[in-house]
């Protein structure tokens, strides 16, 4: 394939091992799978040429998450969100619990949509990706104090999000 560089050692293992978690982070950031995939692909494509250096620093995932967050923040200004609007309602695959799961996911995304981009990024990095405050700060290019501030404000906003308290108290599993 034109322009394709050689695959760095360990890159495939990383992608296979971490793609799932990265995609879920991407989904929480963007609210949809196409954008999540695009986000992860963008970050991995940026990491590929630097892979050897990143692995020497033992920081490939930190770097990938950093690119994901920065790319997400850039996208949030304006452009495509990856939703496909159609004039038809796609068929649901199942009933019952599926509806509840969809409801839960919708409630979660709606709650996250209430957050400014940087607060949302902190929530995803800090609470979903289980990054420390300093790792989150490094990924976002800000201070630990700023991360704390974003987290505090995000939590305050999420408290008021409809349906989220019930989800946090325990709800429908994915």
């Amino acid at each position: 394939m034109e322009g394709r560089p050689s695959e760095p050692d360990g890159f495939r293992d990383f992608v296979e091992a971490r793609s799932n978690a990265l995609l879920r982070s991407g989904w929480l950031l963007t609210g949809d799978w196409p954008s999540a995939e695009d986000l992860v692909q963008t970050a991995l494509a940026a990491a590929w040429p630097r892979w050897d250096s990143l692995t020497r620093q033992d920081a490939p995932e930190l770097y990938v998450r950093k690119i994901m967050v920065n790319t997400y923040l850039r996208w949030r200004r304006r452009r495509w969100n990856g939703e496909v609007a159609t004039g038809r309602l796609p068929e649901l695959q199942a009933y019952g619990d599926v509806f509840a799961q969809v409801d839960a996911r919708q409630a979660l995304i709606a709650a996250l949509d209430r957050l400014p981009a940087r607060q949302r990024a902190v929530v995803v990095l800090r609470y979903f990706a289980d990054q420390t405050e300093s790792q989150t700060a490094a990924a976002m290019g800000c201070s630990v104090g700023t991360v704390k501030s974003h987290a505090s404000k995000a939590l305050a906003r999420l408290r008021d999000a409809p349906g989220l308290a019930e989800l946090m108290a325990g709800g429908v599993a994915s």
Partner: protein
Amino acid sequence: MNTEERQLAEMLRRVAPEPTRRVTVEDVAFRLANQAAGTGHRRHREPRAQRGSWGRGWAPVLAAAGVIVVAGASAGIATALTSHRPPASSSIGGASPSASVSTSASSPAPSQVPTSVSPSWPPERVASGMWGAELINRDTFNQDSLTSGDGSLYATGDGNLARIDPANGNVLASVSYGASAAGPPVPGAPVVTGSTVWVPSEYAGTSVVLHGYNARTLAQVASVTVPVTGQVSATASGVLTAGPDGDLYVAAGSSVAVVNPSTRQVIKQISVSAGPVSSLAVSPDGSKLYVSTGPFQLLTYNRATGAQLGGQAIADLTTTAGNLVATSGGVWGTTGVGMTESAWFAPDADLTRMVRLGTGAGAGLGSIPAFSGGVVWIGGSHTLECASPVTGQVLKSVTIPTDGGVVEYFGSVTVMAGRAYAYYQDQRAQQAGVATLTPPSSCSG
């Protein structure tokens, strides 16, 4: 972590669904190969029937399986979230015309003179010929970036500024203005003053840098570092504009910087106490400066003295107001996100009299007002409208058809030499580019 934080963490992990497919090394390799081949802005290399790689704007491929269904969308349409699956092989060099852009996707050397050869495509009727729509260019740009000046069209996409021939849509020149994947966006359209095209090369945190490019060659002719008060808005859109005297106005955190494009000096800094400026506009007579901050406040300043003349907030909206446009009758902008994003008009900048315009865009697209050719254009994926710049009254509206049930989009309308141009997207066909329009005479201003 405290209890609440632990509950949040647990809930996120429980509710966030498992992806239906994983990103593979082949996906990434495909993207890398395409980036390497596609210097300059993302370029559509394949005819309509052959779907190739797309940038962010075209990540979703409808052939992929739907994953989540969001029913009952406010706009009366459903939103299907689909998976992205790149094609099995690149169609670069296939049946499509060859294309080359000389500039690198990475930061260019200052004053680099780009040369570019764009493929010639025959105009293609799109959107069922709505308002005579014909696609004359097949490049993916930022949806809010098409503008005109000095006899050319200009647009940005993926860190590149392109000059487009209005006669045939060919990209005459393209240059990377320095934005990187991890860097800032260009929130809004380039601004043409005289023979220079200005674009924010850096716009993030405490850094704002404007680059000026020769309107013909796109050789870089200026770089202006703008002092920022605090940090720039993280949700800015429409941060650079020109006043009637030709001065540039740029949102610079909690202030607006005024730049003389001739001397390339910052000549004034107007403080905005309400916080980081999301967008700005200058009244046609040059007397007033309008700025928006988020959550949505619209503030009016005396452009000459910098004194605040008024300010209003909208209580029921939590998102920022962007893409401000000022006309003699008032201020226009957008607010909301996603399916709720819509354009509005506030007569005399009075938000208590604010009216919504158009039917929004949805699907991640913006319904962005543009003032060109004597009228204000409101694009979107449902309707395209022209409105009176004095009263805000919609003069003409046309329904944008769907392509097999999938929305098509027109936005960023600009008028030059009696001809209207818009940025067009058709998700189903994975088609994007600059289209010409022949609006009715009532839209002629």
